[in-house]
């Protein structure tokens, strides 16, 4: 009886929280996602997140990724997560935005190393093939203590290796898609005793002459869509990636890992509004090398990780000729853990050298710059557990020096409380910061070496509720409310003619509500799933150094206030189907909120069927995007494709 009272109490709390959140969100955002929300410690293979109490995670695992074998990380996140993807079109630049932040506020990490270029501080998610990924974990909030500069909205953790997989495995993939797209992929895991090798190869090319309607979608005003269908031109691309990971055990206590991820892409950049074609082309090449060593004995664990990342971007157009930027990051981490029964601690140090080089034409002159930066950081964390782990509290602090200049101390506090077996409370208060990028500091004629780092403080509370209704109907839901303030927000403003310069201009307040829910219902051999994501985001400058700034208290541009997703899934045996509806609300295009792009909604359908021939598993997967042929633009005048498909054949041994 007492137990039931607890359950009812838990229901009550969740409902009250929902209603309270509802009252908060006059202009917030809704978003749904069918992915699972897993406890941090289940996020396999990720480094610090498993140690971080009070953070909200969302994991997109292989069951979701199966439907995106030919697609990029940008397409997976755009369809399946609460992250807003600013995409300039198929195969074109795509960056992530969490909780009203921008691409510079969203690090993408591979084994704990940030992939962003030191030059522009961004990662182009269109260039990361989801085929090579085993897991994507989204960490919401500002875990800057652990991930350093830039982790202000959230972070995206990529895992390329399935740590649980034992023995030899082969996966081959071949796919075709709309607009002349062809994809090939191979993944091979070999295990010899204590050593595992993980090999991945990916190649995609596309004519990318996608169909769209020319349209004037800028509001206010009537949306004008030309009835005839146009085709994109000068948008073809090819991309290849190679991944090799080697992991082994050295005796009883030690492990060694060596990793290489190389990828290259060539893209023609289409123009949709210009009469004068610049015939722009871009080549990207990334090389990521990593070595990690782990010693674990009893409660003590020592990890050493070294990473060398190189980013090379070549841009050419008929006006300027060739411009090239090169970024190099050399990073060393030393982490020490102590896993006690009640206390766990982490003490880490980081040393990093960044180098950025640019050779470019601008205003008729050739400019070169070559700059470097040294960063050192120490950070530590103590986690305390009480009541058999039902209460976890964590206090962390980070100190960092950039070229000898100290960054103010960054503390954070996390809390996790298991109120009931069906109800968990997560919360954290964190400080964060973002160092200006090399482009911000040193761009010829325009960089501003006097820029201060952006600084943030955030608070968030989540309630997680997992229960079974009517004996069979599983329900997982998480409701989150957050509040975040960032000061010294960097903005590029005009300084005369075609020149602009970054300054610390705004203080931005973001607050919002996120609700994820998912029902699971097994009936006989069939499984049904219904889930959703709702995001309400309000992100507004509340202070400005600009005179008469009309953007004050207005929603940031390209930051949807509402994002929503509903998803229905069905599986029976080897058949699996997934229907997804995504809604993205208005995105203001002027900072005084006088112009905006209209909301859009997209429907997609994906299905797969697997069959075995002896030991050989074949899977056919098909997906249809933009089922109802909606004409839409995520960014101004960058058309998105009408209905399109992918067909994939996968072989596994």
């Amino acid at each position, binding site marked *: 009886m007492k137990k*039931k009272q607890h359950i*009812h109490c838990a*229901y009550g709390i*969740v*409902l009250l929280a*929902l*209603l309270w959140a*509802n*009252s908060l*969100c*006059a*202009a917030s955002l*809704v978003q749904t996602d069918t992915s699972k929300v897993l406890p941090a410690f289940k996020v396999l293979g990720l480094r610090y997140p498993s140690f971080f109490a009070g953070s909200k995670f969302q994991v997109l695992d292989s069951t979701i990724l199966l439907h995106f074998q030919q697609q990029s990380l940008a397409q997976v996140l755009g369809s399946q997560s609460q992250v807003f993807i600013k995409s300039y079109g198929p195969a074109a630049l795509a960056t992530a935005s969490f909780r009203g932040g921008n691409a510079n506020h969203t690090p993408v990490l591979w084994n704990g190393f940030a992939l962003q270029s030191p030059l522009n501080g961004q990662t182009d998610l269109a260039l990361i093939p989801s085929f090579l990924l085993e897991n994507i974990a989204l960490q919401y909030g500002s875990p800057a203590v652990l991930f350093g500069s830039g982790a202000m909205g959230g972070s995206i953790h990529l895992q390329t290796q399935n740590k649980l997989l034992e023995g030899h495995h082969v996966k081959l993939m071949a796919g075709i898609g709309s607009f002349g797209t062809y994809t090939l992929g191979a993944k091979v895991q070999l295990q010899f005793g204590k050593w595992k090798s993980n090999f991945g190869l990916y190649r995609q090319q596309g004519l990318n002459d996608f169909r769209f309607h020319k349209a*004037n979608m*800028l*509001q206010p*005003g009537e949306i*004008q869509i030309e009835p005839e269908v146009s085709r994109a031109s000068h948008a073809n691309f090819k991309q290849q990636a190679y991944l090799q990971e080697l992991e082994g055990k050295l005796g009883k206590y030690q492990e060694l890992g060596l990793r290489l991820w190389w990828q290259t892409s060539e893209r023609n950049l289409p123009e*949709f*509004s*210009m*009469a*004068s074609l610049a015939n722009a082309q871009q080549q990207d090449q990334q090389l990521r090398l990593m070595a990690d060593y782990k010693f674990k004995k009893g409660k003590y664990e020592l990890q050493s990780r070294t990473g060398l990342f190189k980013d090379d971007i070549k841009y050419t157009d008929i*006006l300027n000729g060739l411009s090239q930027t090169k970024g190099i990051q050399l990073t060393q981490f030393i982490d020490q853990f102590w896993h006690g029964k009640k206390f766990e601690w982490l003490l880490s140090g980081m040393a990093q050298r960044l180098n950025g080089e640019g050779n470019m034409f601008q*205003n*008729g*002159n*050739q*400019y070169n710059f070559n700059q470097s930066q040294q960063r050192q950081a120490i950070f530590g964390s103590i986690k305390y557990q009480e009541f058999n782990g039902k209460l976890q509290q964590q206090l962390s602090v980070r100190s960092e020096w950039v070229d000898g200049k100290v960054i103010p101390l960054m503390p954070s506090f996390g809390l996790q409380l298991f109120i009931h077996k069906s109800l968990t409370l997560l919360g954290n208060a964190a400080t964060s910061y973002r160092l200006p990028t090399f482009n911000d500091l040193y761009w010829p*004629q325009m960089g501003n070496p006097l820029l201060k780092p952006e600084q943030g403080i955030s608070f968030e509370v989540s309630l997680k509720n997992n229960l079974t209704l009517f004996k069979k109907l599983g329900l997982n839901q998480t409701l989150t409310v957050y509040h975040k303030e960032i000061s010294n927000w960097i903005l590029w*403003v*005009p*300084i*005369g*003619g075609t020149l*602009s310069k970054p300054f610390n201009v705004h203080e931005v307040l973001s607050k919002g509500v996120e*609700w994820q*829910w998912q029902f699971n219902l097994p009936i006989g051999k069939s499984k049904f799933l219904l889930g*959703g994501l*709702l995001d*309400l985001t309000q992100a507004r400058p509340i202070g400005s*150094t*600009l*005179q*008469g*700034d*009309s*953007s004050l208290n207005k929603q940031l541009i390209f930051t949807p206030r*509402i994002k*929503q997703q509903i998803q229905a899934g069905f599986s029976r045996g080897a058949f699996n189907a997934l229907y997804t509806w995504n809604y993205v*609300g208005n995105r203001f*295009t*002027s*900072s*005084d909120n*006088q*112009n905006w792009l209209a*909301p859009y909604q997209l429907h997609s359908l994906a299905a797969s069927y697997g069959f075995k021939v002896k030991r050989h598993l074949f899977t056919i997967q098909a997906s249809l995007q933009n089922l109802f042929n909606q004409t839409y633009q995520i960014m*101004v*005048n960058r058309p998105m494709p009408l209905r399109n498909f992918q067909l994939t054949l996968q072989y596994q041994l």
Partner: protein
Amino acid sequence: MAQNRAHKTHHFLYLGLLFLAGLSMAFSACEKTPIVLPKAVPGDSLSQGMLIGSEGNFQWGNASLSFLDKQSGTLYEDVYKTVNQKPLGDVLQSMCSWQDKIYLVLNNSGKIEIINKHSFKSEGSIVGLRAPRYMLPISAQTAYVSDLYDNHLSIVNLSTLQVSGKIACPGWTEEMLSFGEKVFVCNKYQAYLYVIDTKTQSLSDSIFIGYGAISLALDKNNKLWVLTTGNANGNNKVEPQLHCLLPSQNSIEKTIGLGMGNLPLKLQINAGKDKLYWLVQDVWSMDINDIAKPATKLIPSNGRTFYGLGYDAYQKQIWVSDAKDYVQKSELLIYNEDGTYIKSLRAGINTSSFLIK
């Protein structure tokens, strides 16, 4: 059994409440956007006033034309779109008035839109241009168009609205000025000001001006003023300068250095044609008889981001636009000739050109 039923009831209740909470959340999330009142159309249009050209954002197709009626003081925003029910185009670089038409030069649309001076109704367009910057009518039949990429000036037939020929002029050609049978052409990345002979439609001379001529004005003594950007980069650094030329002789009479590292823009001249204005972050001014650069600025920007500069010859007022963060309406600040502030108003995004109607 009864307990089981109660259990079920609770589950239904919970699901129902959850559904309602979710539903109300979804509804409360209905989005508000600014209420946009229908825009007024200027009634007659013999009225005088200022045409305000706003570039908009590169590749966004949100260039706009606004009109401030001098008589009534009414600001008509985005008149091209209101009257013609279609967007103007991408990056409104400059405007010029000729006879009863106004020519709107849309750099990134590669075209020039033509509207009636009185009704603002579209009267066609000149296409086939690469990235036009400025247009200069030189006769009832002919105009020249400078270009960012084309390495030529285009010769446009104003009757057929066709490009009828080209005059080679390598580099980024900018403002032009007609003087007798000559046209002087700025070139942003060259060390010369070019001279075109309008009879032969060909390049007839070039005048060494340091580097980067961008803006021109003719004073009351028929002397030509040339503003240059100079070149702050590379081994051969050149100071930005203001030259006074004798246009009939293609020779420089005097040169005033504007200080290395500065980037002067938008040369304007007053109604009396004896006072010059330009932008170097602030508004600067000097008399045509001065022999050195001004010691103090006329209108300090005080943290504003001055982007465009114009002069209203009827009311003898200086117009300056503050582009803010590039993505909101510009603030237009209006001053007397002596730099005293009169008023401000808001127009389109990245306002950079002004034309008296």
